[in-house]
């Protein structure tokens, strides 16, 4: 033992245990901030939110560099995007229900809520495809088109990711795995959806209204 010579008390054997607490009857999962997954979701939302902030920052940087905006293109149409916004905001209600029914561990209601949320997600994705057709600019036309498509693409990516997540969870709730900790997952899925919803209104205003005001 080389370290022994200069060190006071190097230990070579594990310490004996002195039991001071028993965890046998602690719950095996919980909801919200008591669950590690919730913190993981929050951290991912933070990182991705930072991504949005960066792209939005770049958007305004380009606005100020150029002075005129939206460069040579007309502003994008409002119809589909506004419909998208309305549906997005409306989805808060079923989402809240899904969260609540999950927390109540009510299987049949959770199933119903998740099916509704999946359908809403699909509808939103459909509207998004139509929306992309009314932007009046291509990504390779000028910097305005580029940043517009990037911002919208980034949001679409999040929408699609959460939709995939919701659909898988919905299927899962219809299998024999639909109990116990899955209910906590329903809550976390709802939590992430809030992030997707919350990130949209600023983007909507920036993409669709800001060029009209500038």
């Amino acid at each position, binding site marked *: 033992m080389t370290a022994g010579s200069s060190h006071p008390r190097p230990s070579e054997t594990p310490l004996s*245990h002195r039991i001071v607490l028993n965890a046998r009857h602690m*719950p095996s999962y919980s909801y919200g901030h008591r669950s590690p997954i919730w*913190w993981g979701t929050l951290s991912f939302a933070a990182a991705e939110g930072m991504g949005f902030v960066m792209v939005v920052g770049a958007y305004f940087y380009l606005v100020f560099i150029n002075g005129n905006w939206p460069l040579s293109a007309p502003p994008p149409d409002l119809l589909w995007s506004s419909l998208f916004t309305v549906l997005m905001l409306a989805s808060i209600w079923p989402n809240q229900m899904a969260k609540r029914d999950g927390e109540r561990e009510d299987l049949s209601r959770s199933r119903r809520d998740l099916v509704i949320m999946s359908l809403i997600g699909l509808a939103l994705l459909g509207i998004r495809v139509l929306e992309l057709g009314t932007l009046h600019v291509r990504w*390779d036309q000028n910097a305005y088109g580029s940043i517009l498509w990037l911002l919208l693409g980034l949001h679409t990516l999040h929408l699609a990711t959460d939709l995939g997540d919701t659909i898988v969870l919905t299927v899962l709730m219809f299998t024999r795995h639909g109990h116990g900790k899955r209910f906590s997952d329903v809550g976390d899925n709802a939590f992430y959806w809030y992030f997707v919803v919350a990130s949209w209104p600023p983007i909507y205003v920036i993409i669709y209204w800001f060029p009209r005001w500038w």
Partner: protein
Amino acid sequence: MTRTLTPHDVDAVPEPTRLATGERGGLPGVRSAADAPPSPDELRDDQVDGLELSARLAKTWGTDKGLIGALSTVDHKIIGRRYIVTAIIFLFLGGLSAVAMRLQLAQPENELIGPDLYNQLFTMHGTTMMFLFGVPIGEAFAVYLVPLMVGTRNIAFPRLNAFSYYVYLFGGAMIWVAFMLNIGPDVGWFAYVPLSGPEFSPGKRADFWAQMITFTEVAGIAVAISVIVTVFKLRAPGMTLDRIPLFVWAELVNSFVIVFALPAVVTASAMLILDRLVGTHFFNPAEGGDALLYQHLFWFFGHPEVYIIFLPATGWVSAIVVTFARRQAFGYIALVLSLIATGFLSFGLWVHHMFTAGLPQLGASFFTASSMLIAIPNGIQIFCWIATLWDGRPIFRTPLLFIIGFFFIFVAGGLSGIMLASVPLDSQVHDTFFVVAHFHYVLIGGNVFPLLAAVYYWFPKFTGRMMSERIGIWHFGLAFIGFNVAFFPMHITGLMGMPRRVYTYLPEMGWGNLNLISTIGAVIFFASFVLFLYNLASSARRGPMAGPNPWDAGTLEWAAASPPLPQNFDRIPVVTNREPLWANRDSLPVVTGLSVDNREQIVSTITHGRADLRESTPEPSIWPFIAAVATAILFIGSMFTPWAVVWGSLPLAVALIGWFWPKMSTEDER
């Protein structure tokens, strides 16, 4: 002398009510499965003891043999070890490219290496050292040590952690294979547009660089989130915020910086690759874009990056100083607060990399002030460490020697950084060898020397064997001399007007002798690493056996066996002090009641570290590996066709579903 300590008394273990929340899992009024009593058939660790407990837990938490088992493992120690080894391999690759460059610069108009290869070499050197070594090495140590130090059995999200390692490995392998194939990036590690843009970097070289960024950033953010949640939710009962080891604090702050800084560089590299591949105009001034946008985005990440590299090192320094000073850390609160302050301030400095870009003067001087201000938290840290040593009884083993080397070099580098923070001075030394000297003093002094200390310090924990002290001293001596001989003259070469990133220079410039000295120093420095490699290899096989706690250190990782068993601890420890092993020399207070047959961990509350849940953590799975392969296919494919984003997401989705699909665990059978 009197005992003055942490808020709570050292010897008394707090009442169980202060260690556990005692709350139900389900919401009020809901009959939740979470509160169902545990199955009586399941063996729990209050029913067995001693070797039998160890053996059963080792079986439950172990990794299967064979290739599939190795690729399926979720053991943070195995993944952490791979992370550390991989990062150190990249350190050596980066070092080799540096030696090649130094040989080219040894004399004026040397024709050893042509401009094309030289440009690829310095790009690979910077890229490797920053993205494939600097960021991952800090995270790698976190992956291995944080769960041990906070007294838990695995990292939070162990599959995500495994996934991140493979993504990192694939990204690093991709760029080095590209380099071997002569498609290495040649645009510098920050790949400024327009040079890296579609017009001036034909071919795939810069695409490989940009995609490598995506790989490493995905990996980096994934690990950072795992670490954050581990520290927040998986701490041993009793580990209140003010009992978290300083190393863990450093890694926590570091992870936050990663989470907030890395999205900026992903944005920059994504814009770059979109410009290159699908013809967007983010950086095309003729169509409303701007070249400086890239620089802003890159440095908004790039400066925190420096602290991402430095913060884990402060954790190593704190751990080693305390152990070898034989005294608990002086100014714990001040150290933690300055870590946090450094984390925040690091986001307010990025413009000092752009002082010569012609930005408005007033804005620039704001960044002078903020850049200089960061000297304050760093100064507090340095002074607190010196104070700890002052009041301690330093024991001069190799780890402490490297820490002393760190002080010499890092403080010098930090001070020359103050010159760079000044707009007028920076206008002379920016982009010269003076800057090269400065950031090598900061990065090698601030990261590599502490890293070497950390390797000597934790090697017994990783392998169960001590490293050779004799070789260690030689290693330190050579490294210290080699480093200073290599890099100190660069300050002067820079002031004499030598810009960085030149593959050669004219004889009449008069830079020849200084460059020759630098090259000699670089060779000595590299030789010290060869010695290090030899020490690692020989000690791993023949080094003297180390007990669980060869240095008589105070933090929890030293309570586990060396190397730790798969379960880390036979029972989860209860923490009563910042240095639990110093406060409990006779017996360790522990929690019981966790399953022996299933992977259960204690989930605790964020601030008070009260035990709250006994949640099960994921079993090994091959899906994270498959998901990483699918991710690699998607990323690499998208360099060749944008449609890869579409078809590549299908296998990825399949892999992710496989990953999250619950297995038939006992929990599900109930």
